[in-house]
């Protein structure tokens, strides 16, 4: 247990260090690259004194080190400032967008894991059959296909040609749920979730399916499966026992693929006009709304780091063979 606690502590310190490094990198990028974010705001007819006053008000005349310290402190306390375009604190905007992103990712991921695990177990059990060959080839193709084009294809077919499903958004315009929960506890939301959910599913199902297939191959040949058979258990029951043992590596894999998925989220949210954090980032970049850009980037990076952290921990907790030194 002592070792475990030390391990967790060390991983947490790495997380904080990496987050700090990323924030510093972002600060350097925003400060040194040509193009002054404030120049966009200040109209050219402004008097020089007014520009100077505005710069002073924003604290842009302070020494760089002071600005840097203030920036790190604000990020660490989730104080993202005021949006340039909407007169609201950035915090109110971005946390809601982050929730919206989870509202797309989480349901699709849960279904993908369950379906993928079952599919993978079945494929692994029927090793060598023709069905297995085609199944694996299809999974590999889906895994490497650019999912944003898959999204475009589904959109063309189901939203524009057949007109069965909405082409974008998280809820209809007349759905005026006040809170996040009021909005997602509707059929309307599920209806909007189908298409982006299918795209996510098509990609995310491949990881658990391929993984479980290969672990199942190993488990299938192990002694305890023979014993179960010798006991006279039905084949279906034997598969369940084997699958449970093949499940271990899946847990960490899911957390890692969730982290990767967050990056691709930008594309899907743009295509399906989903009001998530990735789409907010692109909108803010196009509006040059830098407080929002910083906040979105920070939250995305933090989410990915935390997911990887959880993956590392689970890996150790589930597999007793892993020791912490």
């Amino acid at each position, binding site marked *: 247990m002592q070792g475990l606690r030390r391990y967790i502590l060390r991983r947490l310190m790495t997380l904080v260090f990496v987050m700090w490094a990323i924030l510093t990198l972002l600060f350097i*990028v925003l400060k040194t690259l040509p193009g002054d974010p404030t120049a966009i705001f200040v109209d050219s007819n402004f008097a020089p004194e007014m520009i100077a006053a505005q710069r002073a008000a924003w604290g842009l005349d302070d020494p760089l080190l002071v600005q840097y310290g203030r920036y790190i402190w604000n990020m660490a306390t989730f104080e993202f400032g005021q949006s340039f375009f909407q007169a609201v604190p950035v915090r109110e905007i971005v946390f809601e967008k982050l929730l919206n992103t989870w509202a797309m990712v989480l349901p699709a991921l849960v279904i993908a894991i369950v379906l993928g695990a079952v599919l993978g177990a079945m494929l692994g059990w029927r090793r060598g059959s023709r069905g297995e060959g085609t199944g694996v080839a299809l999974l*590999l193709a889906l895994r*490497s*296909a*650019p999912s944003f*084009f898959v999204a475009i294809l589904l959109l063309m077919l189901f939203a524009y040609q057949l007109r069965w499903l909405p082409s974008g958004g998280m809820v209809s315009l007349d759905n005026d749920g006040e809170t996040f929960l009021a909005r997602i506890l509707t059929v309307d939301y599920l209806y909007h979730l189908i298409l982006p959910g299918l795209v996510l599913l098509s990609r995310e199902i491949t990881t658990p399916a391929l993984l479980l297939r290969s672990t199942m191959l190993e488990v299938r040949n192990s002694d305890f499966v023979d014993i179960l058979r010798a006991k006279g258990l039905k084949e279906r029951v034997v598969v369940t026992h084997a699958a449970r043992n093949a499940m271990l590596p899946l847990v960490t894999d899911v957390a890692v693929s969730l982290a990767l998925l967050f990056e691709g989220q*930008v594309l899907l949210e743009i295509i399906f006009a989903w009001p998530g954090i990735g789409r907010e980032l692109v909108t803010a*970049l196009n509006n040059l709304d830098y407080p929002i850009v910083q906040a979105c980037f920070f939250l995305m*990076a933090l989410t990915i780091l935390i997911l990887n952290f959880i993956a590392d921990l689970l890996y150790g907790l589930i597999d007793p063979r892993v020791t912490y030194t």
Partner: protein
Amino acid sequence: MSDNTLRVSRKWQMTRLFHTIMRYPSGSVAFAFLLVFFAMALIGPWVAPYGPFETIYDKDEMPIRLAAPSAQHWLGTTNHGVDVFSQLLWGARIALVVGVLSALGSVLLGTLIGLLAGYFSGIVDEIIMRFTDIAYGIPFLPFALVVISIVQPSIGLIIILVIAFLWRTTARVIRSQVLTLRERPFVLAARAAGLSELAILFRHVAPNVLPLSFLYVAIGVQAGVMSEAALSFLGFGDPNVMSWGLMLNDAFRAGAMRSAWWWVLPPGICLSILVISTFMVTRAYEELVNPRLRKR
């Protein structure tokens, strides 16, 4: 004499790679597709009937907007009257240039870093590995979007950004490989013979990790192609160079998904086939490098 045997074995390896690829139906089909794309990239611009940004006018000096596929325009035209087939041919070159350059760059950088970190453990390794941690923590697409929105977007910048992210995987794998290699007897023998550490590293250790590095070239091509397409699709690509991502961006913004399938499908399908083919060939090569994956 020894030079000669080396050449024979290398030739034999190439044959073996070719056979491994061809053993799968997916591998041979993928290989054929890759050849087609290389041909497109090589001769595309000379074969293309029109320029990638050239508006085509009819007899009455009106641009031929959103024309369906015909004998003149095999894949129709865009809303600005540009020939889609020509754009597609020009785009193949960009996709392959970005893919190959970013893959080579990232593998070169990653292999070098991995070699140094693995061979000179201790403080060098510690520092390099912290940088790898940071590289793994940065979300690529969001970071690239922020940088590109501040600097002028260009193909060169995109390649540099991809390299700045992709080296991390190669570096990690090569490092762990070097960690075991440096304990082998041949390294001791080289040291006993009086070779300098750098000479041992580059002349005796490096050749042993090269096959593994090449695997990451193939993976890198895929990542490079996809990154360029994704950035261009989001409108953050090089606006002066016609790529498949840019075609999709134009089509998406013009609402061609509702009306002009001939404008949306070709770039998307080419992109998908290129990426999937690279992946399939990579898998065959991986099986050759990593014997544990070989069919039992």
